[in-house]
């Protein structure tokens, strides 16, 4: 177990293009960090720099306070799960898992190897498949073998490079929860690269959003969602993603393509002095005006719009409203889309309506919008004008506390279930255990050495 510190890390390729640019992250012991961003944002490169498969151009990488920039991957004691699993096809599942132990020559006796592999296999429900070759396993099983290889050797940290992207949707959900529970039980520091929203939001203690090699924001999923630092983060996190409406500010009134919206005074103050802003509205901030309870109605404003069509999903429904932005605004939206990896942002607003709503496409309807929750973004810099940094920090702090609690509970439960026999506790005082075993079965140990 270890903490990992990235200190102004830079990765430049031969042509001078910075794939990773000045990224600093402090990863605490036992923390689960997600690196997320559109393709080509440098998240995988960053992970490979940590594990040592890519050279670091500039900056420091510290593991437990020790600088490891120049150490070979094998000296960093990190375990990595590759996107395509990278199992050794000529070895059985058992030997695949035992591979790292066998490489550390002399450190483990044959009995210890067997014990560790059997333990890892039973944690991952691979016991029945130990003698099979990877080629005969299903995708999910291969994935688990790759994880087995990581957990068997008591690495300081786990690194995951999009480990679930090759699985089908159902299996992905299952493996996601398995990874999450395993991480909590082992309490091991983890860095996880993904481009999947759901994985990022559900697994991470903190999520680092990267764009073109630069760190945009690192915070708990809730802070990212509720207090995004800029347009990019706001648009990247959340599905369906946040709607961006160009608007002009006139006092307490926002003039948008959907109509005039009354702003709460406090938000209006923050946007004061700006002529043009981008209004960020999450789909769930909208509601069918007929279904809004009276006491909430005053927290927002209503407007009339025609939905092009609706999609009913059972628990809720999505409605789509097209709008026509001014040409210069359209340019702004297209730039934003390019940043997000999309071709063109359609001037469209997605609204989430209650499943009971009778609003249908093609008819004009009255829609209510919770203006308290709006975000206002600077049209030029993309900065979030209405971000409440303190509230955000509070959310992340809470997440940190929850994490500590979860790890403690998981380990306690695990200790009770396995009678203290499993994994971390045993590994923690590995020396003591070895000595005991040696004293108790000196005959066996000698025999093993005799081979």
């Amino acid at each position, binding site marked *: 177990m270890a903490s990992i510190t990235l200190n102004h890390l830079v990765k430049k390729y031969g042509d001078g293009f910075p794939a990773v640019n000045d990224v600093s992250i402090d990863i605490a012991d036992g923390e689960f960090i997600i690196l997320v961003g559109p393709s080509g944002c440098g998240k995988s490169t960053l992970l490979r720099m940590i*594990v040592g*498969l890519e050279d670091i151009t500039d900056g420091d990488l510290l593991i437990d306070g020790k600088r490891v920039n120049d150490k*070979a991957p094998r000296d960093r004691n990190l375990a990595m799960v590759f996107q395509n699993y*990278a199992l050794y*096809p000529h070895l059985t599942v058992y030997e695949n898992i035992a591979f790292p132990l066998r490489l550390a020559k002399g450190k483990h006796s044959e009995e210890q190897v067997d014990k560790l592999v059997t333990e890892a296999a039973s944690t991952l429900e691979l016991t029945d498949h130990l003698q099979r070759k*990877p080629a005969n396993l299903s995708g999910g099983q291969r994935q688990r073998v790759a994880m087995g290889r990581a957990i068997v050797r008591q690495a300081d940290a786990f690194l995951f490079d999009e480990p679930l992207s090759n699985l089908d949707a159902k299996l992905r959900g299952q493996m996601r929860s398995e990874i999450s529970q395993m991480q909590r039980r082992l309490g091991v520091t983890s860095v996880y690269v993904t481009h999947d929203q759901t994985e990022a939001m559900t697994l991470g203690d903190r999520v680092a959003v990267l764009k073109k090699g630069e760190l945009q924001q690192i915070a708990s999923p809730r802070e990212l969602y509720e207090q995004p630092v800029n347009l990019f983060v706001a648009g990247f996190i959340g599905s369906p993603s946040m709607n961006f409406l160009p608007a002009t500010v006139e006092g307490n009134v926002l003039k948008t393509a959907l109509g005039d919206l009354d702003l709460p005074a406090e938000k209006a103050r923050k946007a004061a002095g700006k002529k043009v802003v981008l209004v960020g509205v999450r789909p769930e901030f909208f509601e069918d005006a007929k279904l809004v309870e009276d006491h909430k109605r005053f927290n927002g404003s209503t407007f009339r719009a025609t939905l092009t069509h609706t999609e009913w999903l059972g628990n809720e429904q999505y409605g789509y409203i097209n709008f026509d932005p001014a040409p210069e605004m359209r340019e702004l939206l297209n730039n934003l889309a390019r940043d997000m990896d999309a071709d063109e942002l359609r001037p469209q607003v997605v609204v989430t309506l209650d499943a009971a709503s009778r609003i249908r496409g093609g008819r004009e309807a009255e829609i209510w919008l919770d203006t308290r929750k709006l975000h206002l973004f600077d049209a030029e810099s993309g900065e979030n004008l209405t971000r409440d940094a303190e509230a955000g920090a509070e959310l992340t702090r809470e997440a940190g506390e929850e994490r500590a609690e979860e790890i403690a509970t998981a380990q306690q439960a695990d200790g009770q279930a396995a009678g203290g026999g499993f994994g971390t506790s045993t590994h923690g005082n590995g020396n003591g255990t070895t000595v005991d075993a040696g004293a108790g079965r000196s005959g066996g140990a000698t025999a093993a050495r005799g081979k």
Partner: protein
Amino acid sequence: MTNTSTRNKVLWAIVTVLVLVYALFPVISILATSFKSPSDLTSGKFLPSSGTATTSNYEQILVGDAQGLFLSALRNSIGITLIATFIAVVLATLCAYAIARLDFPGKKLVLTTALAVSIFPVISIVTPLFNLWRTIGLYDTWLGLIIPYLSLTLPISIWTLTAFFRQIPWELEQAAQVDGATTWQAFRKAIVPLAAPGVFTTAIIAFFIAWNDFVYGISLTSTEAARPVPAALAFFTGASQFEAPTGAISAAAIIVTIPIVLLVLLFQRQIVSGLTSGAVKG
């Protein structure tokens, strides 16, 4: 559906039989000839006439007059070919690995040079080589044949192995390194076992090339010290000047075919590639 598939099967069976007959007929013909007595050679029949089938040809080359000529040649052939194959495969493995994995200037040059060497006609090098070998004392020695054989086997080995190494996923090696292996360990434990089928295939191809060579064998040797089988066959003589040594040559040809057949049968399994499946997704 079933109709077409049965028809397909029948069609394939016919094609297979045709190819087999075409490929095996000469071999069987030689086999039949090797059991004919000298007087039976011109009978015009495929099989030895009844009652005259004889193993005298085999006796002649293994224990009889031609023994000295044939057995020493067999020893030379086996020794020289195995050594040449071994060196070629080891060098080609290292070379191909570097070409497939590393980025270094001159990579293209190595490959094109190898190709250029392999398309150079053997017969045009033989005369200068003959003079050179005589001057520096390599003429009629094992080494004098091993070196030219390397020039034949190395290029093709490098090309086949490079193609093979390129198929092996990079991640395996990186995974091994993260798991605690040195570069050499990662190569030996993760890459070599996967490359084994490719290496065996290459070894067999290289072996065939060296084993079948005639031009170098006859030009660069003069005695039993280094003369390989294909060259030795040309020196067979009949019992008298009126008898053709056809029977003995056929017997020798059959005997030199045996190692090749054995080799292929032995390594058949290793040659079957597809061992990499299951390494990565798919």
